[in-house]
């Protein structure tokens, strides 16, 4: 299909998931993974990572610091499908069940250099108040089947009716 050494370009991503602000929650951990297009192939490093559980700092910032390193290298032939990092944060609820506290995604920066990104996080909401209650009670909040959907556009079209 291809010649011996097809031309590719490399994208090296170094960084870390530094900290988070979840004023309502404590003792959270986060996971990250990458979503990228068909022309992208990770060549080195970890595509996925999971952090330690961290507690809120005791100062006024109340930050949840993970400092989870990210180090991955992609190769690609096409900027289309530029990698996105998908973060999902989990933590225990009142009953001690791990529930999801936030999803978020951001594109890996397009320009080289140091970048700092703040990702707004969100979670899917229960469909009804009753379900909200039961999900709270059972410790099974609504979750995405796959956290990667936050970085994908499929099925997001507004449907009539």
């Amino acid at each position, binding site marked *: 299909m291809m010649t011996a050494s*097809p031309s590719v370009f490399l994208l090296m991503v170094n960084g870390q998931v530094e900290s988070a602000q979840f004023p309502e929650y404590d003792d959270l951990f986060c996971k990250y993974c990458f979503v990228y297009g068909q022309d992208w192939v990770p060549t080195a490093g970890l595509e996925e990572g999971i952090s330690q559980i961290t507690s809120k700092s005791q100062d006024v910032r109340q930050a949840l610091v993970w400092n989870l390193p990210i180090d991955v290298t992609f190769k690609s032939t096409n900027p289309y499908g530029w990698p996105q990092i998908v973060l999902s944060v989990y933590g225990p609820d009142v009953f001690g069940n791990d529930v999801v506290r936030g999803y978020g995604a951001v594109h890996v920066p397009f320009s080289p250099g140091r970048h700092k990104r703040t990702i707004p996080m969100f979670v899917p909401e229960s469909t*009804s108040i009753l379900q909200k209650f039961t999900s709270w009670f059972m410790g*099974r909040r609504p979750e995405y089947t796959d956290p990667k959907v936050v970085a994908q556009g499929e099925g997001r079209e507004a449907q009539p009716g």
Partner: protein
Amino acid sequence: MNPREEKVKIITEEFIENDEDADMERQKKNPKVRRQPRKKQPPTAVRKEMVSEKSHLGNQQEPVQEEPKTCLLSMTARRGPQSLPPIPSTSRTGFAEFSMRGRMREKLQAARSKAESALLQEIPTPWPRRLRSPSKKELETEFGTEPGKEVESTQQEIDSQSHSRVKFHDSARKIKPKPQVPPGFPSAEEAYNFFTFNFDPEPEESEKKPKARHREGTNLEQEEGEEEPPAHGGGKETDEEELLNGDDAEDFLLGLDHMADDFVAVRPADYESIHDRLQMEREMLFIPSRQTVPTYKKLPENVQPRFLEDEGLYTGVRPEVSRTNQNIMENRLLVQDPERRWFGDDGRILALPNPIKPFPSRLPVETQELSIKAELETMYKKAVKYVHSSQHVIRSGDPPGNFQLDIDISGLLFTHHPCFSREHVLAAKLAQLYDQYLARHQRNKAKFLTEKLQALRNAVQTGLDPEKPHQSLDTIQKTINDYKSEIRQTRKLRDAEQEKDRTLLKTIIKVWKEMKSLREFQRFTNTPLKLVLRKEKGDQKADEEAYEAEIQVEISELLEEHTEEYTQKMEEYRTSLQQWKAWRKAQRAKKKKRKQAAEEHSYDETEEPHPEEDLVKPIPPEPTDRAVIEQEVRERATQSRRRPGEPMLVPELSLAGSITPNNQCPRAEVLRREDVKKRSLYLKVLFNNKEVSRTVTRPLGADFRVHFGQIFNLQIVNWPESLALQVYETIGHSGPTLLAEVFLPVPETTVVAGRAPIEEVEFSSNQHVTLDHEGVGSGVPFSFEADGSNQLILMTSGKVSHSVAWAIGENGIPLIPPLSQQNIGFRSALKRADAISSIGTSGLTDMKKLAKWAAESKLDPNDPNNAPLMQLISVATSGESYVPDFFRLEQLQQEFNFVSDQELSRSKRFRLLLLRSQEVPEFRNYKQIPVYDREIMEKVFQDYEKRLRDRNVIETKEHIDTHRAMVAKYLQQVRESVINRFLIAKQHFLLADMIVEEEVPNISILGLSLFKLAEQKRPLRPRRKGRKKVTAQNLSDGDIKLLVNIVRAYDIPVRKPAVSKFQQPSRSSRMFSEKHAASPSTHSPNHNADYPLGQVSVRPFVEVSFQRTVCHTTTAEGPNPSWNEELELPFRAPNGDYSTASLQSVKDVVFINIFDEVLHDVLEDDRERGSGIHTRIERHWLGCVKIPFSTIYFQARIDGTFKIDIPPVLLGYSKEQNMILERGFDSVRNLSEGSYITLFITIEPQLVPGESVQEKFESQEDEKLLQASEKFQAECAFKFPNRQCLTTVIDINGKTVFITRYLKPLNPPEELLNVYPNNLQATAELVARYVSLIPFLPDTVSFAGICDLWSTSDQFLDLLAGDEEEHAVLLCNYFLSLGKKAWLVMGNAIPEGPTAYVLTWEQGHYLIWNPCSGHFYGQFDTFCPLKNVGCLIGPDNIWFNIQRYDSPLRINFDVTKPKLWKSFFSRSLPYPGLSSVQPEELIYQRSDKAAAAELQDRIEKILKEKIMDWRPRHLTRWNRYCTSTLRHFLPLLEKSQGEDVEDDHRAELLKQLGDYRFSGFPLHMPYSEVKPLIDAVYSTGVHNIDVPNVEFALAVYIHPYPKNVLSVWIYVASLIRNR
């Protein structure tokens, strides 16, 4: 170190300086201070001692002193402003001169007070000093001279030195600002400074130090003697110091106490006058003025303002800011920012057109805890529905308010109504005509035109008048010509108008006459209409004159016209005549030539074509005749004009007539009137398609008028899009019916209440009404004539009189949306928003209208928002010849095309990207499309292009004939379209696809879980854990494995000993009846003697091949082996696509082959037997089981015992022998012949089969039936959720069809019926075999995941492919036509899963038929693959199994028992007699024998090639003799359906190929494609034999059945010559 200490030191210093005086003073006044030296020194202090003491003191104090100094420095630095000015020289000298003693007292007092206050000031900052110094001391004492410390300490020294200087300066400066103190007298401050500060000049101190050094000797040799206290003295000194501190502190506090009141000063309150304050404020504050800033101020000097908008650049609209605010801002900016950066070239503040940011920005989170929470708190907001027609919503910028639309509905009048009697019809017609007449009369166009004509004539007259010479002759002539042509036009118009008037009058009279005659005829009157014709007589003579004059004028005019025309025509005639003559001449010349030519070649003449057509000789025009014209004119005049003297008729319609009362009317009429009375009407008002109000219901009057007289005030917020009225009629007590809908125009903004005229809108309805009384009905023909001729069809129609207007508010302001109020002169926001709303959609296609609108609304041509429109208009108005009749929305697209289309199609990379994004199967999962074209091989596209070609041209090589090719093509197309539909549907995610959410538990689950909480914990109890299911998302090659667990097999055929003493076995002529009758075997165990019991009869092993991967078990022994082995086969999805859709369409089959491992001793020399073993392993294929992957995928696991598909002839093997071994099973086993294997197959990890897309299909079934079927299914599913219940299915067109429509007796092919004319059962078997020969093609593969599509039997036979349902339906239909009782059985079978079988009722027992294999089983056959029965379907009913069990063994098939079978059609819902979707009759073409033979040859050739391909390392020899033998044998097999020929065959083979060891078998399959045949041959592994001298034989036989159903036999064998 605290301030007290400091003070102490200061005083000590002073004391040192002033010697005795100071000493005395000190003793007197400051006993506290004095104590210190006293303690250290004896009171008898002499000077010398003092010196020593001083030195001592200095020594002692200096370390201490240095510290406070540094501290002081820091302190002074902190005090800032107190820093010291240079000392006046006088102060020093003054000191010397003073005899101080006297003054010293007061000074000291003052100094003390000062010192106290200074101390007080210092108190707040004691700690830093304290903290620092001891630690430093410590460091210094303990560690000696550290380099770092040294530096620091030198620094300190320097500081201290400079500090002393500074202090001095300070004092001097303090003196300075107090000039009021008399010269010579030191002020209090001075005095204080004098006593408190160290006035020692630098040199003095340095002097002192050396002194001290000398005294201290070695200790002071160190450079920084002061900082480095002697090590020995350190401890003692600090002790003393502390003691001192304690005492001082006490004394000081005491002193403070009693002196506190001395410091309070009394002063008057500060007052600043308001004037001052204002003054100050004016200085401090800046209040920008509200005055407009002149432009020159805002611009750089000498720059003229520049207005971009005037220059034609688009500037956008500035946000609305009030003028004053703007001025204030400008003034402020002018002061703040003198560079005028904030002002644009036009001298205005820079502003963006839109203050709204295009992207959201997040507010910075405040650090306070509370606000963070408030900030980040998640809020739920309900989704807001997007308002589609936003342009019609009043913008937020507009003042909100209610606007009011008044709709006045005054009444309704029917111009036709079903209840109209004939008279009404006429009356309505009359009224209509009269209305027309009145309207025409009012306009009186004829008169107007007559007058115009007159005027024109006069004009011509005056124009011709020679007395008016002021115009050139030319222009006069021209105008006259114009006039004349206008006269002509006008005259024509007038004539037409007059004629119309006249005919109208005539028709009115005619209708009226008709009406009168009708009234007479029916002898009653229904309508009060009455027409009166008033005659107006005029002056006959004048009339006549005018008439005649008119005619004369007309004639003369016409004559003039004609002469003009005549001359013109004459001219034309002449020219054409000349042309003709010239042509004639030429023609003649030609003819001559031709004649000459003809003489030479006479035969050519006729063929020679006449190139030119003959010109017709022109005819001269005829001159006009006056008489003719006159006649014409007169004729016309009589027709269209009132004759002179004839009275003018003026019709007058009145309602003065009387209606015949009811009692005098005939019955039909009375009925009609009563019917009318029953009817009532109301109107609904719809605003923007929503009902907003409705009128009261009013009865229909006898005159078919309804008066409402209601005014509706619509308070609206939205700009009205549509306004409609719906007319509803109610008859009696029945519900209202919608008659018609009328759309009202939205009024102009000028139309306000009170000024709106009542308007009428017509409506009509297309309802059909026939009435049984005098009413004529609607939409039905009726006639006025007695004989029914001349029929009329009238539709219900009428008029609504209404008025719509904008209301006027209380203060007289019209309540119109303001957008349109600004309309005049301004560009309205509404119109700016959308052209459509202002000129309507139709206007968009009308370029001129659009352009006009654009001009009117003053669209900014530079506004990017208007670009598309402007582009269009510019094209339309630029006068280009080509005006597009379309409206392009993305006219800028071209600018965004980064390459031209040609380049896009030429580039391989772009092509690849395009194809991938179009989800073309080959490229859907293409990864890493290369960057450069050169890196893309042409090969990539080959497959795709080939497929594209193949789509149109189906290779006939693989297909028997064009028919089959067409079927394949059709199937391919259906498949593609369905798959495309499916791919689109796949994009629609449901909530459940995206989000995992727990269901709300119902009470029972809750209760159960609560119960579980209370349950005892049993940690050791084993629990079954469900396997994790994997959705096919991130799978890749190698992730999925197929696990095949081969458990055991039964009844494997065993080897026969060498057939040396072959005997013809008694042919067991098993009849059909024996198969199901549980009779013991009739086989005679005649081979018993041949087999010693202990001998291994067979060594079977199982080989599983899937996707060309092969795995096999170990070899077991005996005919009932048990392997219990798990084989693992990798699974690869096509194109690496592991999506559900792709997995569903995997067509691969798992072949499970059973082989016999045969060891051949190849030792040639018997003598070596002791030392070596030379055996060759051969394997002989015994049979196979095929399981399609799709079955495994959908079933998740397959577990059961399957019948091994064993070829009918298996040379060298037999099955008879196991009777002896396992006689116990005989009765059971013998029921169904064959070998069985127990398998367990699953996929690891478990894949989630795709949900079939639940689409609602349209249907032509009765709605009630559909509802009933839904209900039925729901009920069944509720009771037995696992049992299959089918009521409706989807046909091949995607429509829902009731299932029983598929069942109908259909004729099987004649050919089959004729085989066994008398044996019904044999015929049935043959038919079943025929059906099973139709290739099997699962729907789920072809129509991935959509749903089962059911094709009718003729479609099935045409397509020659279908799955279980189609087979079953066809078989069932055949059975029905054979007169059997047959049902379709829906249930579960292995390995198919949910499937359809056929059940028949034979005498006394039931038979279950597998339609795909043609096998049948008795009801109580344990090996029947059908395991569950869900429902039975007959041609007229559906029965659902409501018995406790669903296994066919345990249920009763008697559908007449309602307790066992729930029937769909019952007494409550009788069978409505549904027509069948099947054809009346199936038509079979005879199969083409020649084509079959051709195919047979081709297949044989292909297979032979394949076998040679599969043996690349060996020579493949073909034994032609054997092949021909086999070929003769195959038709026999077909005839006997593969039964009971084995022994004959064997004998024959033996006879012919006596010296060969032969292994081989026939394979039998239905024919669909070549590929399955190849696969089947491959799976037998015959080619695997690698004995050097092996020979092969392969024969193919195809037996054609009607409709191109082909039965394929392949005999494949390997031969080894016996030595």
